[in-house]
């Protein structure tokens, strides 16, 4: 009988994520995958999985599940209390779970998304080479619901170790490189982007982090013909408020990209209302 993970409490938005499905952007297929990819890699390293094994990505409210056959888990990402059968577990180490044990990943107190790796990985059927749930296109498994039974793969190696993560919380500094369409904006707008603080909007999701702050004014009012966009692209729609693309971003877009955030990890863990600043410029 295949080992499974039984979802007891799915939480606000819990999805299966791995490192996504790159290679299909030319067909309109988003990359998807863990928003905080380093955190998933760390969880997999601790659980003894391959780096690209599928785990759970929770959003703010955590989740709870049972392992009827027991196993080893690791939880990384957001700061959250993890309990196994009610007993708090060490968040920096692999955690053994007895057969039938109940794992509760609590509410995130710092950061947004926790990553749960289970030894063996989640073995839901892959779609185009990935088990990631893509919330934009609907590819991959449906979002996790209470009562779901997710199959586990075979354990490939013993629990491991991982370097401690970078600290979460506080104000977020995002490294950016200007372009490709900074020339479509006023010089003042580029200056504004690099010198003023923005607030993470509650309307942010896996597609992008919406930021609120000083509007970025266009110098060129033409309509941009659709062009390919990358992870971390800072797209500026008509209202001038920047949107930074995260893993489920569309593959092409028609709004000019003023700059590209070269590491979106911190943004994936930035809570609504928190402050972010861009720093650069490196062209």
């Amino acid at each position, binding site marked *: 009988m295949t080992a499974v993970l039984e979802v007891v409490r799915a939480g606000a938005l819990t999805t299966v994520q791995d490192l996504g499905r790159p290679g*299909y952007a030319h067909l309109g297929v988003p990359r998807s995958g863990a928003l905080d990819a380093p955190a998933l890699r760390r969880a997999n390293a601790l659980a003894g999985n391959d780096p690209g094994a599928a785990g759970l990505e929770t959003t703010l409210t955590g989740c709870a599940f049972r392992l009827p056959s027991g196993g080893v888990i690791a939880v990384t990402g957001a700061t959250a209390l993890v309990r196994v059968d009610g007993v708090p577990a060490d968040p920096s180490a692999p955690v053994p779970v007895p057969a039938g044990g109940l794992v509760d990943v609590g509410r995130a107190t710092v950061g947004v998304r926790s990553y749960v790796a289970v030894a063996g990985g989640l073995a839901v059927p892959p779609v185009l080479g990935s088990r990631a749930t893509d919330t934009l296109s609907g590819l991959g498994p449906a979002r996790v619901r209470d009562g779901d039974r997710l199959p586990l793969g075979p354990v490939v190696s013993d629990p491991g170790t991982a370097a401690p993560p970078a600290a979460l919380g506080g104000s977020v500094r995002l490294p950016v*490189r200007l372009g490709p369409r900074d020339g479509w904006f006023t010089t003042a707008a580029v200056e504004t982007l690099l010198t003023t603080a923005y607030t993470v909007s509650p309307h942010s999701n896996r597609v992008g982090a919406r930021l609120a702050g000083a509007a970025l004014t266009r110098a060129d009012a033409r309509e941009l013909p659709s062009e*390919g966009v990358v992870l971390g692209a800072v797209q500026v729609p008509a209202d001038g408020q920047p949107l930074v693309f995260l893993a489920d971003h569309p593959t092409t877009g028609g709004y000019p990209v003023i700059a590209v955030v070269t590491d979106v990890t911190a943004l994936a863990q930035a809570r609504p209302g928190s402050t972010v600043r861009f720093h650069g410029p490196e062209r």
Partner: protein
Amino acid sequence: MHIRSVGAAALLIECPADEVEAWRSELWRRRSAGELAVAEIVPGACTVLLDGLATPDAGLIAGWAPPPPAGTTPGDLVAIPTVYDGPDLAAVAALWSMPIPMVIDRLTETEFRVAFCGFAPGFGYLTGLPPELAVPRLATPRTSVPAGSVGLAGPYAGIYPTSSPGGWQLVGRTEVTLFDVDRDPPALLAPGTTVRLVRA
């Protein structure tokens, strides 16, 4: 032609719209030949994005200018059996100042090409209509457009692979499956493909 840096690992090649396909196929060929290590080759309306380059070297790419468009070979031909009974067919006929049967003739006689994909997996932007036949998007998009709907917007034709909201003017429908994750490649209408919207 102009090449722009995009973040730390991507380049955007800007070129006239009628040279995009030549660039795309040339870069695709070089990747297949092992000359170009890149995760994604994504055409746009007037651009080709190279994403996931280990060393973004604009000078190297600039030296790979493809042969002129006339020298490129046509892509695979896909015929899409289409029932021309879309709810916006009369509106398109009015915009084109011609009766509906002539609209259908124009659409069935046009050799389209998939210029690029986007919006949804397997949604190809089809070029081939002359600029004077461009039509506006609906002022109010539909909340749900059925899968297989054939529509027009701007200079493009397109077919909805799945049911979704949409603002394109719908002229017909097809029962062809445009995107199937169990097919290789999953999209029927990949960039470069030649398409005919034949009568069903």
